[in-house]
């Protein structure tokens, strides 16, 4: 019972965080802000999968957790590497 109540609270909290990250993703003034928001969004999705594993007691999503870390890393580093300043001074 404790687990179910805690899962509901955490699920709502994760959803709130995801919505706020999505707002920053849509509004973010620069591409780096959007990269950061996407990173946070991916981490929140990974947290949600962890929540599912904890509540239902299985390990089906653990591969995604491991791969998700690496994909987030490669994506952010690639974008950060190729970002340039195109604003006219």
């Amino acid at each position, binding site marked *: *019972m*404790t*687990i179910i*109540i*805690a*899962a509901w*609270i*955490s*699920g709502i*909290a*994760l959803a*709130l*965080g*995801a*919505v*706020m*990250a999505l*707002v*920053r993703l849509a509004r973010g003034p*620069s591409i*780096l*802000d959007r*990269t*950061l*928001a996407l*990173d*946070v969004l991916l*981490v*929140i999705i*990974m*947290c949600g999968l*962890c*929540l599912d*594993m*904890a*509540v239902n*007691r299985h*390990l089906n999503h*653990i591969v995604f*957790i*491991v791969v998700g*870390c*690496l994909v*987030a*890393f490669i994506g*952010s*580093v690639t974008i*950060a*590497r190729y*970002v*340039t*300043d195109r604003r006219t001074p």
Partner: protein
Amino acid sequence: MIAMALADGGVADTVLDWITAVCMVGGALMSVAAGIGLLRFPDLFSRMHAATKPQVLGLFLLLLAVALQIRAWAAVPVLLLAWLFQLLTAPVTAHMVGRAAYRTKHLKQEKLVLDDLNEVVSEAQRRLDERR
């Protein structure tokens, strides 16, 4: 509720369930904190500060919750590996994003208390100009 749990699982189960619940809620609150930080903070560097919270502590607490519910030692290395990857990649990502932000001037100069990089960059620029 405690009496019910005692009847079917024992005290250890109840205690582990409570610890799991605390870990889950704590980990989820980290992502709310990151969301609020992303929305409210003024520039990229302060947003990066907020974004690290669910990446390291939030994921750790939720992986701990998984480990406490699975209760098998075989699961621990995989969970540890997942957290280790996150722990290794998060600082490198933050460094690369911060570096790109500084180079492309996506920052509010007046928000910085101290800018150590400015001296080094202007010195490097001066040497580059001399060579030309």
